[in-house]
């Protein structure tokens, strides 16, 4: 056999185990989700029927679906800008020579290594009416007890707060790494020109951090659509579906009502959203915007 032939055989043999598992647990299920979404869910005395776009039609008429989309968009809008802004602020602080910055950096990063499900349980107590820490602190200022997670108006905000707390420290480290790569010469030059610190940040640091911001942004978007651990612990989508996110609704339809084909149709929406995020990353990030 030629060298090329041997290389091909070796190459494919090396790939085989990983490709087989990927095919079984990523490619096939993605395809099956698509195909299943055109069928009805088989029930004991009713086999699966081809229903065409039936599932998608009932989805368009499903108020809970629309609410989960709207909730998810609000959730994304609430978590993404704030956690990125906080991450940047944290990175700028930790990057400066503040006292005890190693300890501060550790404090910011700690939520990242804790299980979401564990911290959600702690936050659950913070939000408890009357006894919870939040109500206790607020009562010092004369506020009345409030059922934070039990009121549709505040439940989603509470969940958003937990997510920001969990994510900001993780995003911080990317900003920190990027800040440390900015040459000190730029700072000296700007200072010689008499630029204020704010100007230095706006005109030098922030533009140079653009690739990091885009990277963090895409990650934040993906996270906003695939994290539901805290929903399961804190609200179970309630009250009155006020905190039902798209993936949580998939979980509910698939494993509480056992309507697997409708869940498949819902998953397709989720996949479309994730694909959009990934394509944005590919098209924008891969070009590596640099202002040099």
């Amino acid at each position, binding site marked *: 056999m030629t060298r*090329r032939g041997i*290389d*091909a055989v*070796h*190459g*494919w043999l*090396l*790939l085989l*185990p*990983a490709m087989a*598992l*990927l095919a079984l*647990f*990523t490619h*096939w299920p*993605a395809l099956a*989700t698509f195909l299943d979404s055109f069928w009805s869910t088989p029930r004991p005395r009713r086999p699966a029927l081809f229903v065409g776009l039936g599932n998608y039609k009932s989805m368009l008429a499903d108020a809970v679906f629309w609410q989960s989309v709207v909730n998810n968009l609000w959730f994304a809008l609430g978590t993404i800008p704030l956690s990125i802004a906080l991450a940047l602020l944290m990175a700028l602080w930790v*990057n400066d*020579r*503040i006292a005890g*910055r190693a300890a*501060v950096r*550790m*404090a*910011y*990063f*700690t939520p*990242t290594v*804790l*299980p*979401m499900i*564990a*911290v959600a*349980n*702690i936050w659950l107590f*913070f939000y408890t009416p009357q006894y*919870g820490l939040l109500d206790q602190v607020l009562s010092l200022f004369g506020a009345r007890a409030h059922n934070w997670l039990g009121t549709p108006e505040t439940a989603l905000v509470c969940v958003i707060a937990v997510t920001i*707390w969990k994510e900001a420290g993780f995003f911080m480290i*990317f900003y920190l*790494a990027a*800040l*440390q790569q*900015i040459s000190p010469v*730029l*700072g*000296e030059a*700007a*200072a010689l020109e008499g630029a204020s610190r704010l100007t230095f940040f706006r005109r030098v640091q922030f533009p140079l951090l653009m690739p990091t911001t885009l990277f963090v942004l895409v990650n934040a978007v993906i996270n906003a659509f695939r994290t539901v651990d805290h929903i*399961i*612990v804190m609200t179970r989508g309630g009250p009155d579906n006020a905190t039902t996110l798209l*993936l949580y609704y998939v*979980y509910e339809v698939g494993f509480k009502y056992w309507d*697997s084909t409708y869940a498949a149709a819902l*998953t397709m929406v*989720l*996949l479309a959203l*994730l*694909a959009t*995020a*990934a394509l944005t990353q590919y098209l924008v990030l891969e070009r590596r915007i640099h202002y040099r």
Partner: protein
Amino acid sequence: MRVQSIAYAPHGPWRLLESAAAWLLAILWLLPLLYAIWSAFHPAEYSARFVPLAPVTLDNFARALSAAPFARYFLNTFALVTLILSCQLVLCTLAAYAFARFEFAGRELAFALVLVQLMIMPDVLIVENYRTMTRLGIVDSIPAIALPYIASAFGVFLLRQTFKTVPRELDEAARVEGAGALQVLWRVYVPLGRPVYIAYALVSVSYHWNNFLWPLIVTNSVEARPLTVGLQVFASTDQGVDWSVICAATLMTSAPLLLAFLLFQRQFVQSFMRAGIR
């Protein structure tokens, strides 16, 4: 750590103000954890009353341990992360080696097929993967939790990038000495990739230690449940479990990772960074 932009380092009162703000936020960020520690080590009646001299107790931990089989959950999680990581390392290393150093037809297509997983994550394919596990007859087992995550596109990608930076000369030299493809991989590529392997291992272990939704769906017995699911089952039963006990259980669940993080802070932060930037 390099200090940069000294020109703009805050001075005098500004430095004080900035430090104070940073510390305030840091305390706010640690508050949930500090609260859990307070509550777990004090009797239930102090769980919302912060008296400096409140008696310290380990009673909450004892009660949590006797109320749910946490020892078994620990064992399950440990088996789970070990299984996932060891399989990931082997499979991803082999695949990354093929992508980095072998020329063959269909390589680009295969690589694109691998990268699909970065977009379509197993976290989202819960319904179909559950059906697959049912067909395979392995629902409610540790391998069922592990299987969708073993072929990790992220691991393949990370290692491929690493292997590509290995000088060809080293590869050729080993081959001249008569080493086969796998021997070269083992003796040249794997040792040179060590920092990346450590980074990947830390990220993988913390991800799967903390993973919740898929294990929740695919397990329903004490024998297969990992810690996260066990904690949730324990905390959501309405048997009047008090907060102190839940906090104790929460701390136990997070303790191994938290301790590892405190001990190897630098490696953790660098690993997450390396893994994220790719």
